[in-house]
């Protein structure tokens, strides 16, 4: 058990609070909601956990991230109390050793955590799965992602230059949270594919280095659309291929329109297998030094004069989100050997 969070006295003025919290290094550079004990208690009331319980020792600082301190981050981020079980599940997910949080938070790569929310809770909490998803709009997406980011700053000790050696950072580092548009997906939802029940609500955490648009406005058949999606992923800039590291996953966020057309011919596994086979460039696109390094890595990515972007079909994580009738999907690259982690969000007061 860890000591309860410390209380500081600040003038009852919104700018004074911003200056104080910014000077303390507790913010992401944007104003935060003052985490008063009453506000923190309202978060804590949504979970059946002791405030002093140590949820994780988050890398690199490995400070004790207690339930209460995570609640402080959620308040500062602007979360409604009923979002807190989602934030807590997200923190537990990134603490899974397979997520490799030390690498995520300290690498020179621009990678940051991304949250994908599945299950009935999306609708209860008004999580955006549709138009302008990942953009600045819905409070649930904006503040749940931000709460995780503030936990990285305050509880994992992700401090630029000192511990975080990110050369630049994905702007999704402020907040990066999407819901899957399950109602408009022709396939089973991501969390069901990953072993959960359709009635469960979950968070899936991955760690994209960057996000890129994949446009197709003209395809009339699934085959041509998939060919263009594959082409759209060529410039992904992932560490998998450029230069050679590891076996991390790509994420492919298909818009409902693209997903519907693809589903006339393909299931998700067939899409993954197509990408595995066809997402490749001639070795002449890559320097000889890099080719040599990729060969030495031993993942079998150099084959018949081509550099493959992945070594296994499971390296493509697929979910559906975006506005209806849209022509744009999105790809996300991994930074390396971080595995996506899915965790169930326990039902909580107000979220039944």
């Amino acid at each position, binding site marked *: 058990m860890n000591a309860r969070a410390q209380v500081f006295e600040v003038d009852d003025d919104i700018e004074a609070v911003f200056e104080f919290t910014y000077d303390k290094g507790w913010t992401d550079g944007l104003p935060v909601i003052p985490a008063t004990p009453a506000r923190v208690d309202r978060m804590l009331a949504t979970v059946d956990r002791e405030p002093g319980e140590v949820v994780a020792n988050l*890398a*690199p*600082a*490995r*400070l004790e991230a207690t339930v209460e301190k995570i609640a402080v981050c959620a308040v500062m981020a602007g979360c409604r109390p009923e979002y807190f079980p989602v934030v807590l599940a997200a923190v537990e997910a990134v603490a899974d050793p397979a997520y490799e949080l*030390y690498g995520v938070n*300290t690498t020179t790569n621009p990678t940051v955590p991304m949250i994908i929310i599945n299950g009935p809770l999306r609708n209860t909490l008004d999580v955006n799965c549709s138009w302008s998803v990942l953009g600045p709009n819905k409070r649930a997406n904006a503040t749940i992602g931000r709460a995780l980011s503030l936990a990285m700053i305050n509880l994992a*000790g992700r401090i630029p*230059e*000192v*511990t975080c*050696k990110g050369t630049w950072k994905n702007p999704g580092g402020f907040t990066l949270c999407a819901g899957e548009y399950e109602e408009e997906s022709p396939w089973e939802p991501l969390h069901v594919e990953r072993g959960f029940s359709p009635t469960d609500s979950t968070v899936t955490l991955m760690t994209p280095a960057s996000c890129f648009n994949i446009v197709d406005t003209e395809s009339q058949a699934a085959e041509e659309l998939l060919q263009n999606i594959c082409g759209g992923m060529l410039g992904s800039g992932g560490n998998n291929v450029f230069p050679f590291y590891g076996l991390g996953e790509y994420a492919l966020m298909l818009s409902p329109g693209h997903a519907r057309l693809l589903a006339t011919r393909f299931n998700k596994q067939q899409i993954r297998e197509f990408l595995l086979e066809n997402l490749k460039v001639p070795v002449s696109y890559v320097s000889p030094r890099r080719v040599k390094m990729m060969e030495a890595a031993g993942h079998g990515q150099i084959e018949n004069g081509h550099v493959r972007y992945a070594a296994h079909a499971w390296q493509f994580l697929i979910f559906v989100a975006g506005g209806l009738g849209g022509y744009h999907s999105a790809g996300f690259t991994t930074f390396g050997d971080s595995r996506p982690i899915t965790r169930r969000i326990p039902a909580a007061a107000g979220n039944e």
Partner: protein
Amino acid sequence: MQLRGIPTVAVVTEKFVSLAKASAKALGYPDLPMIVVPHPFETLPAEAIREIADQKVHELVAKSVLRAIAAPR
């Protein structure tokens, strides 16, 4: 390695010293000895790396021996 009880000296490039110190401290070894080498390191030609190794090897051996002597038996 240090966590497994093997007395360890870390070799770190100069741009990563702050992270190495913070990480060692977080894992309970605030006094973990370090050898600092120039940055970038991995893009240097092999001869340049060998030259740095020659310069640093005495420091490395000295710190390793001290670390081993100080290690609990």
